[in-house]
């Protein structure tokens, strides 16, 4: 019998909340890039078993980022617009050695592709999803993914302002909407449906301003934001997608927007949805009076705590210089007007918009400090850590490199209060952060940074360390300084292979198990395709046949297909 290719990670302090393991010293066995049950005694003792000593280290599944902007035309435009941002940041150096070769890159708020892979990996993250790709930009996103090493990837496609979607919703064609969503998810090679400012981007592209309430009709289409949200949420559920609609509500960033957010939560009437960068949607106050700006996180969190069908990621704002980039075209223009800084926008025919603006969050500026505090309130008020994921909406609220700092703020009340005291003095009166004394445990951190996002995304092999899971593992040196502990993992293992050792990126690839792109293959009614084709050829400026991304051009694919049926 052929000898098995076994690796064992020995005696680590394992935090694997998905399997109910909270800081237990145990061995983890790996084979073919997967976690396996401990083999028979005889095989365990074989001399060719690779042994990694994890004694004294905290062991967690690799981190999973549920919402980030790392690929596609929008991100690339931002790179191009901001050379100065990169010049002020430490670059990634090229390395060639007997081990392997790794590429150079630029960093800053929008790192180049190779740098993105190395930085995530160096942070102990092994999976990241891009949150906003226009279907027409899918090929571009996949191309960048091919050049983003060491992490598994996937993306969500923008459908909330798609003309075909708006038309079907206006006509009440639920079946046709579902068929279209199924078809386009496959054509783009996407993992989930994203909705950005439903109807509002289309209104902006038509020169008709924006959509500010759930029941305003979308110009030229007549359907409302409410119908777009519920229609697509239902379609995602009908198709049994692993991740429900990923929703960026109307009125992002505007005082008083919590009403819209709460209204959207109510409108779902029990349907599943993921509310992304919820921090940016939790504001009270009058639209035109900044002095009334305040937190409504407690009100929203109360609804959230009582509605298990809703999940969120935070979109934490961190102080410093970054780049705001969004599929929300009118928001980009608004930020440009507020900040007076450079503005890039790019609209995609029939599908989407985009806005990019440099931004500096200042702790002494009331609005920014309050945004920071509201993000933290969300983490502390959400009772069920399984339904809240860590995010900065990279790079919108800040870089993903800020996660260790957020972890420190959550785990250490004293540190948090110090930080709060250093911000604008007006913050405390406008939010409840000062009263919240909850401190996250290591296990809760493991939940919100890997176990929960993996579960929300429907990735059965991610975010845990049970048999069958991908052998994506991060080892941390326990440290009272949580920033240091989480910023510099001791080791990172990707698909069973050691890829980061003490901060050094060892290789560009996790071969023989290369990184993968996740996408869904839902069932859909193929009889709808001729109609979609006719519509497409009449409206787009390219041929229907050139629209779907060619499979052979993709990085290795992890397809979830077809999504299993369950009754609703």
């Amino acid at each position, binding site marked *: 019998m052929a000898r098995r290719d076994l690796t064992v990670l020995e005696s680590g302090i394992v935090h694997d909340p998905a399997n109910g393991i909270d800081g237990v010293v145990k061995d983890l066995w790996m084979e073919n890039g997967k976690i396996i049950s401990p083999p028979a005694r005889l095989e365990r003792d074989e001399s060719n078993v690779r042994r990694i000593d994890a004694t004294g280290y905290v062991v967690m599944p690799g981190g999973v980022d549920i919402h980030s902007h790392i690929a596609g*035309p929008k*991100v*690339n*435009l931002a*790179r*191009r*617009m*901001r*050379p*100065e941002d*990169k*010049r002020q940041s430490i*670059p*990634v150096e*090229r390395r*060639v*050695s*007997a081990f392997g*070769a790794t*590429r*150079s*890159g*630029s960093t*800053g708020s*929008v*790192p*180049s*592709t*190779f740098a993105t892979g190395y930085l995530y990996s160096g942070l102990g993250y092994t999976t990241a999803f891009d949150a906003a790709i226009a279907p*027409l*930009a899918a*090929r*571009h996103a996949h*191309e960048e993914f091919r*050049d983003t090493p060491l992490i598994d990837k996937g993306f969500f496609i923008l459908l909330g302002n798609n003309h075909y979607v708006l038309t079907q919703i206006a006509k009440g064609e639920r079946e046709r909407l579902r068929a279209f969503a199924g078809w386009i998810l496959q054509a783009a090679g996407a993992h989930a449906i994203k909705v950005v400012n439903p109807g509002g981007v289309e209104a902006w*592209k*038509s*020169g008709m301003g924006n959509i500010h309430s759930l029941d305003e009709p979308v110009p*030229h289409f007549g359907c409302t934001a409410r119908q777009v949200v519920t229609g697509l949420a239902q379609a995602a559920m009908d198709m049994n997608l692993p991740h429900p609609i990923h929703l960026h509500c109307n009125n992002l960033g505007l005082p008083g927007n919590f009403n819209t957010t709460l209204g959207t939560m109510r409108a779902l009437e029990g349907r599943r949805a993921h509310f992304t960068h919820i921090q940016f949607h939790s504001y009270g106050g009058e639209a035109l009076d900044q002095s009334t700006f305040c937190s409504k996180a407690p009100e929203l969190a109360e609804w959230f705590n009582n509605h298990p069908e809703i999940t969120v990621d935070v979109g934490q704002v961190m102080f410093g210089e970054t780049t705001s980039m969004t599929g929300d075209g009118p928001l980009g*223009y608004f930020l*440009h007007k507020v900040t007076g800084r*450079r*503005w*890039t*926008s*790019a*609209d*995609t*025919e*029939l599908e989407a918009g985009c806005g*990019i603006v440099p931004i500096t969050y200042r702790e002494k500026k009331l609005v920014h400090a309050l945004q920071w505090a509201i993000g933290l309130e969300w983490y502390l008020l959400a009772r069920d850590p399984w339904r809240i994921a860590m995010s900065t909406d990279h790079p919108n609220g800040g870089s993903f490199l800020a996660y260790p700092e957020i972890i420190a703020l959550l785990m250490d009340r004293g540190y948090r209060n110090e930080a709060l005291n250093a911000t604008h003095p007006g913050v405390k009166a406008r939010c409840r952060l000062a009263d919240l004394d909850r401190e996250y445990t290591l296990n809760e951190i493991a939940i919100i940074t890997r176990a929960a996002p993996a579960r929300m995304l429907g990735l059965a092999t991610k975010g845990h360390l049970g048999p069958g899971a991908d052998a994506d593992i991060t080892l941390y040196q326990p440290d009272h300084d949580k920033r240091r502990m989480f910023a510099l993992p001791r080791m990172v293992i990707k698909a069973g292979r050691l890829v980061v050792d003490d901060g050094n990126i060892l290789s560009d690839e996790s071969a023989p198990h290369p990184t993968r792109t996740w996408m869904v293959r839902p069932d859909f009614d193929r009889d709808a395709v001729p109609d979609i084709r006719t519509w497409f050829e009449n*409206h*787009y*400026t*390219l*041929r229907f046949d*050139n629209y779907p991304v*060619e499979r*052979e*051009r993709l990085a290795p694919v992890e397809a979830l297909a077809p999504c299993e049926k369950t009754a609703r």
Partner: protein
Amino acid sequence: MASRDKTDPILPNNSATPAVCTGCGCLCDDVTVSPSGGSLVANTHGCAKGQYWLELRPEPKVSAFLNGRPAPLKKAINAAADILWKSNNPLVFGLEQITCESAAKVVAISDWLGANLDTTASFNQGPTGLAFQGVGEISCSLGEVRNRADLILFWGADPLVTHPRHTSRYSIDPPGVHVPLGRKNRFVVVIDSEANQTASQADLWLRPKPGRDFELIWALRAMIQGREIAGYDSAANGVGLEELEGLAHRLKGCRFGVLFFGDRLLAGPGHHLNADGAVSLAHDINAHTRFYARPLRRAGNPMGSESVTCWQTGYPFGLNLARGFPRYNPGEFTARRLIDSGESDVLLTVGVSPGDYLNSGNANGSHSFQHIHIGDGLPEEWQSPPKVEIRTAPFATAASGTVYRMDDISLPLRPLSMSQLPDMEQVLTELEGTILERMRNSSPPTEMAAS
């Protein structure tokens, strides 16, 4: 990844096959090619430029040359690797007629070598790139133009000549969702000091004196911002103030306007300010209505290779990797200066006809660098033969990969005919592998190129 070696030739298949034409930045994907008498006949819907572009030409029998003499491919690749690996300050230049996949290899090679990397964008579009960094850009895909635009402004551009189907496919004629009557729903303006064919289709042609575009842009910006205009010299600029005011009025009053700027706006002194001004003008108009500004891009895939360079390094062109990471400084690391100053000892050109860009700066025909060329055959005029030349399958008809339209929309390029010449991506993959091997082993080169 796609295998490039077993592409079915379409020639035996007798039906019309859809194709993507890369004859200009329009990247029309509605053309077809049919086999006829051992060659291809392209139906480019009346575009002669495209038809010429997709013609099959006799291929050279030999693909690789060392010092102007035929050589085995492998030997040529080894020689190129040795020269590049030993170079002190190599310049990698071109990336026009190249797929994104090949461009990615070129960027990788530049990274391993610590080379200067520049694309032809630094010649045509450098000013635009700089403007984007200065003020940002406001762009939209060409389908947005087709479906929504009721005002089209061509500035320093003559698309009927340079991008023959731009007007019929995207900008002037086609009916769209919000402009159902096509041409009738649009107001078309040309601003160009030189003879301009597109002007014959325009509702308004403003003809500034040569080199006066900048004055017009700034006057328009002031009008749109509602500011006083002081010192505008109608006679010197060639366009009267009232005419300009009429235009400003139209720009503000349109529902969805697009400014397409061409090479002529970007040529000459102060061009960088012109591009900056054009983008800023679009910014200003957005206070009143939706307005966009886009450059018209040339043939091949310059858009795609710039995109690849940017996502891999963070910068679109004009960069240097000598310190082990990308540094960006157009002007310092751009091809023209590195060649003129004699600072680069090795020049690697890929997917470009170097004579189109580099000859003029070095008129006496001699150069101080060793030249390696990979791509279509070099024209006779190009100085002395390169040290190493590798002729690859013709980009227009035999390449396979991804290409980008001038509006950043990607399209799949599929081979239309079989070529006996090697595939560029494979050549580059081998070259990269050979260079990496040399670096890993850090042993002296095995085979001298010049011997």
